[in-house]
């Protein structure tokens, strides 16, 4: 008994030990595995292990035609499925130099912004849940169901729609579409105030997020942290502004930037982005021009031999698509530059010398989707 009491406490603190977070852990949002080196409660080092959901999608794309690839891109980043589909369509249309009807561009932009809102809603729900607020989970998913209803009516599926196709969209929008979007905007504008009341101004939440996980602008650029996580460090990296596609050059919206560089700043960027997305939808929803919902396409789509690149702003950051074509109906090589992979790489850097409990908050603020990392 005496020996135990006399054990030097400092020795325990100096010893470094490893714990294993994941692959089955609720706060990793999937099957990410983090091997964390700890000294007491302080994170000294962190090694992410990828590949627990590596499905070989890039290799599969080499066997599939371009319309078939769209169904696989849905399943990479399932929370911004419309946006990844949009990237493939833009790439094919750019390579074939096809004129797209204006109606299609309106529909695609509205769908992209609805996707961004629902993705941020789900992120908000799980962020709250990771920090111990179960109410957030119910509030967020309740409002998300409204968007899923809109999609279900028009596209026939709840959230993996494969609605875009090269040249246009699969079918025209449902007659109720505009009415339902208006109803959603009206409701959600009230509900989003509840979001702020629950989390944004909450003292516990502020203490757990402010000053936690500092990511400087230089680091964000050198690690390639794009999307809301990069804009939370003051890096202007919105592809919708820098390389506008579809209707983004014609609508008025602000690129949300925050300069505190911490978890709270990344949180606030996403909250304000939901307002901006609603703003974009409002500008477009009443002005959808009449016309065809798809351009005339050949039955077999063959891209001319060459290299193509297309980038879009997904809900998590910059999604890049690189295709090498040898003139066949399937790509010779397809490479996805997925935002979550780059965002994960910075996790080790920004969680050093933080508490292990803060690691959960930092990981949630990067909004990782694991199939987006592993593909």
């Amino acid at each position: 008994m005496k020996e135990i009491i006399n054990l030097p406490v400092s020795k325990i603190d100096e010893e470094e030990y490893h714990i294993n977070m994941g692959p089955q852990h609720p706060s990793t949002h999937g099957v990410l595995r983090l091997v964390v080196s700890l000294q007491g409660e302080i994170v000294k080092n962190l090694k992410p292990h990828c590949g627990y959901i590596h499905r070989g999608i890039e290799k599969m794309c080499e066997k599939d035609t371009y319309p078939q690839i769209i169904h696989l891109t849905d399943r990479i980043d399932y929370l911004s499925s419309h946006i990844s589909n949009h990237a493939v369509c833009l790439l094919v249309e750019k390579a074939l130099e096809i004129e797209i009807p204006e109606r299609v561009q309106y529909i695609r932009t509205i769908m992209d912004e609805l996707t961004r809102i629902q993705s941020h809603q789900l992120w908000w729900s799980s962020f709250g849940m990771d920090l111990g607020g179960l109410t957030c989970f119910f509030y967020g998913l309740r409002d998300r169901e409204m968007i899923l209803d809109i999609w279900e009516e028009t596209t026939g599926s709840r959230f993996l729609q494969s609605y875009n196709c090269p040249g246009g969209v699969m079918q025209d929008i449902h007659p109720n579409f505009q009415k339902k979007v208006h109803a959603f905007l009206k409701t959600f504008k009230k509900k989003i105030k509840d979001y702020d009341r629950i989390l944004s101004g909450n003292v516990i939440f502020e203490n757990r997020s402010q000053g936690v996980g500092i990511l400087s602008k230089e680091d964000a650029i050198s690690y390639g942290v794009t999307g809301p996580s990069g804009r939370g460090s003051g890096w202007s990296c919105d592809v919708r502004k820098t390389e506008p596609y579809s209707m983004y050059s014609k609508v008025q919206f602000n690129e949300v930037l925050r300069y505190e560089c911490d978890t709270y700043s990344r949180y606030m960027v996403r909250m304000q982005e939901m307002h901006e997305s609603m703003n974009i939808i409002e500008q477009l929803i009443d002005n959808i021009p009449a016309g065809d919902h798809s351009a005339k396409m050949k039955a077999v789509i063959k891209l001319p031999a060459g290299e193509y690149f297309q980038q879009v702003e997904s809900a998590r950051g910059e999604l890049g698509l690189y295709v090498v074509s040898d003139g066949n109906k399937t790509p010779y090589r397809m490479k996805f530059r997925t935002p979550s992979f780059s965002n994960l790489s910075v996790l080790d850097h920004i969680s050093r010398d933080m508490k292990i409990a803060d690691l959960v908050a930092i990981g949630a603020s990067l909004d990782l989707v694991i199939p987006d990392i592993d593909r």
Partner: protein
Amino acid sequence: MKEKDFRDNETLELFKKSGGNVLMTSIDAVIDWGRSNSIWPLTFATSCCGIEMMATGASRHDFARFGIEVYRASPRQADVIVVAGTIVNKMAPVLKRLYDQMSEPRYVIAMGACAVSGGPFYYNSYHVVRGVDHVIPVDVYLPGCPPRPEALLYGIMQLQRKIKLESITRPEQTGIRG
């Protein structure tokens, strides 16, 4: 038991009445009632189906109504593992280990096309397990990519009916494992 009979409630009741003595049947009834109405799932989601599983647990669909009350983060506290999403070769040993850590009686729902058969990744993928039943035994198969929350609720109800057929005296007949 044929699939046709499984859909029919009256056959199930007849089936229960015909076998076992009165005392044992009533113990079975109590145990099955308790087990089938408090199935706690493990928080286990690998990909897209996990989002629909979350939606099933959330406000609109609320599967706590069926006794699937809380998600447990530890396999030792869980009764059912809903395999929501693709299982790849690297994940398969982890899934087996999770299953082994669960206490008996334990159940498995294979949710979504990937867990049932490999789904869209059945062809051409070099790293996907073609059906989770290659790794662990499955009780309920739930097709769809991803299945709707209503489909998951239906799958849970089928699992509950399956549990209600179990008997502690005749484990080999009813297929109970433990």
